[in-house]
């Protein structure tokens, strides 16, 4: 199986406080990984480092993506190389319409692949197709990026963007939180439809319920900057039942 993402002993600090304390994670093509863990344990920090955000200072370790050192690529290059981060808190960009934003992004991806920009007609066709996939309100694409979107609409919009860009590696940071049960199914369905043998997904979540729809191959528990436990999908059920206290006690050796 081909390695997609290989994180080795990754350490990172924010303002001299160590947030990631040696993370090792292997993700192969075709796999779905779930990362769970209490608030503040470092899940989003890890995700943003993969996407290229210069929030935390990397103090050690490596991230390799499809054989390349990820630290050599800036965020836009990572995106074009197929990495997609679904933001935990999607950003509002007043004045920039979704349509223009997506057109700019998509055409950059196409340029990278040596393709011509899409014609206006083809672009709109693609837009419609993907909108149907995530059942997003048609009017949202004429509005400014995330501006005034409801919490749930913002999350759906992340999946919509993912559908437009068809990434190889999608990292969905709590895309399920704030969604009603129908929306959750739609989002999960979207993710599943986009799944291929040669791509991979990492879902960061607090809720086992999402994993009923997106079945993970592996579940990892991130606790205080470390992956303290990994297992199959049953680990999520166990966590749900026993809570993080159980993990805490295991870590502390009780």
């Amino acid at each position, binding site marked *: 199986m081909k390695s997609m993402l290989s994180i080795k002993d990754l350490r990172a600090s924010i303002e001299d406080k160590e947030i990631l304390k040696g993370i090792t994670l292997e993700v192969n093509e075709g796999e779905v990984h779930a990362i769970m863990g209490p608030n503040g344990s470092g899940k989003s920090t890890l995700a943003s480092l993969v*996407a*290229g*955000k210069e929030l935390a200072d990397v103090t050690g370790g490596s991230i390799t993506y499809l054989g390349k050192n990820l630290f050599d690529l*800036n*965020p*836009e290059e*990572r*995106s*074009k190389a197929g990495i*997609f*981060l679904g*933001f935990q808190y*999607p*950003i*509002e*960009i*007043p*004045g*920039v319409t979704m349509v*223009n*934003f997506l057109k*700019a*992004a998509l055409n*950059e*991806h196409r340029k*990278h692949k040596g393709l011509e920009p899409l014609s206006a007609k083809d672009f709109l066709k693609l837009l419609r197709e993907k909108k149907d996939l995530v059942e997003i309100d048609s009017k949202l694409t004429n509005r*400014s*990026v995330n501006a005034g979107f409801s919490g749930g609409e913002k999350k759906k919009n992340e999946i919509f*963007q993912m559908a437009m*860009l068809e990434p190889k590696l999608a990292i969905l940071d709590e895309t399920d939180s704030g969604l009603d049960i129908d929306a959750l199914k739609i989002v999960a369905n979207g993710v599943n439809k986009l799944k291929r043998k040669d791509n991979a997904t990492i879902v960061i979540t607090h809720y086992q319920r999402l994993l009923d729809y997106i079945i993970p191959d592996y579940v990892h528990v991130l606790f205080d900057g470390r992956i303290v436990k990994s297992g199959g999908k049953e680990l999520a059920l166990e966590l749900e039942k026993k809570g993080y206290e159980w993990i805490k006690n295991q870590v502390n050796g009780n």
Partner: protein
Amino acid sequence: MQNKTVISDIEREFIDLYKENRSMFEAKASAPVNMVRKSGIRDFEKLGIPTPLQPLFRNGYRKYLEPRKVEFDLASVFQCDIPTLDAHLVLLVNGFFDKKNGNSLKELPSGIIIGSLASASHKFPGLFEKHYGKYASHKDGLVALNSAFAQDGIFLYVPEGSVYKKPIQIVNLVMAKEDIMVQHRNLIIVEKNAEAGVIICDHAMTPNKFLTNSVTEIYTAENASFDYVKVQNEHNNAVQFSHIFVNQEANSSMTSNIMTLHGGVVRNNVNVLLNGEGAENNSYGLYLVDREQHVDNYTYIDHAKPNCFSNQLYKGVLDDSATGAFNGRILVRKDSQKTHAYQANNNILLTDDAKIYTKPQLEIYADDVKCSHGATVGQLDEEALFYMRARGIPEKEARLIMMFAFAHEVIGNVKVEALLKRIDELVEKRLKGELSPCDNCAMKCY
């Protein structure tokens, strides 16, 4: 009014020049213009030129007191701006109405009169008696100076009930092989229930130093509607003082949109008197400044009557060591109940050296009013930049998209579709650094 005790050399020069040419000025102009002229020089002697601005005048500018023959190809000026815009074009060359394009006064469909201020002042003494110099108060020495020297400019008269959808494009050309100072004077009268709009484009056609000191008076009668768009695209050697005085009667509406794309030193003064109930004023401004440029926007909205509405939105992007100022004064008089007055000034500073001075001044003497003001100074939102980059948009492009979105909030208020598109294009080019001050002229300056 603060009176001067000492008259500087620069001021003395103007006063002497006035004395030498006074009889010539008076012989050419009509009585109402000369009346205002007299008070102009009197007030100028008292007020002078604001001290901080004096160095800008100290350049030995030639003052053209009569039109000079300049050779240019009219066709290329026509092309120069907005190819798809269907507009009626008039030209000022170095402050004087240019007759190449026909008579000095022209009647358009629906009885609109457009042409030379000098000619109109003789032909329509009644209108001048009533309006000329009635709105441009001499609280500023530069306005008084303009009144003293006023000879020509644009006159526009829109008679009662006349609706003219086609915009009137006024092109101010400054072109000379020497450094010159130009003072033109415009008078625009829009009568009851009438509707019209102008687009004013300023072009410096030769690389010489220029100083323009212009005054425009605009009167909108009851129920009239008027649209004013100005695109300033002059080079780094150009200094421009532009004073607009608007008098709005009941239920009239007026929109002004001032886009400063380039210019060495620019000061826009917008003065609005809401002089009848139900009047509505929207005043927008966009300034894109870089290098050593300096742009000021001074606004003064006088809510003299109840039930009026005013809204101001001025936005700026400042790069390099450019500086700018926004000074927005709103006066709500004691009996002006049910006033709505809004003001916003938002700025993006792209460097540490760029500076903006923003100062709202609200004076509210009525109690039942809705007013708000807000000023922001900031950088581009880093989170939004990262969000775009995370979707594959290169940083440079992402910055551009954000600046453009910021600017478009102002540009979007331009009502003429073709012009809006053109300004969008110009601003995009400008933000990309691809627009030279004369890029939109077919004639190349350099």
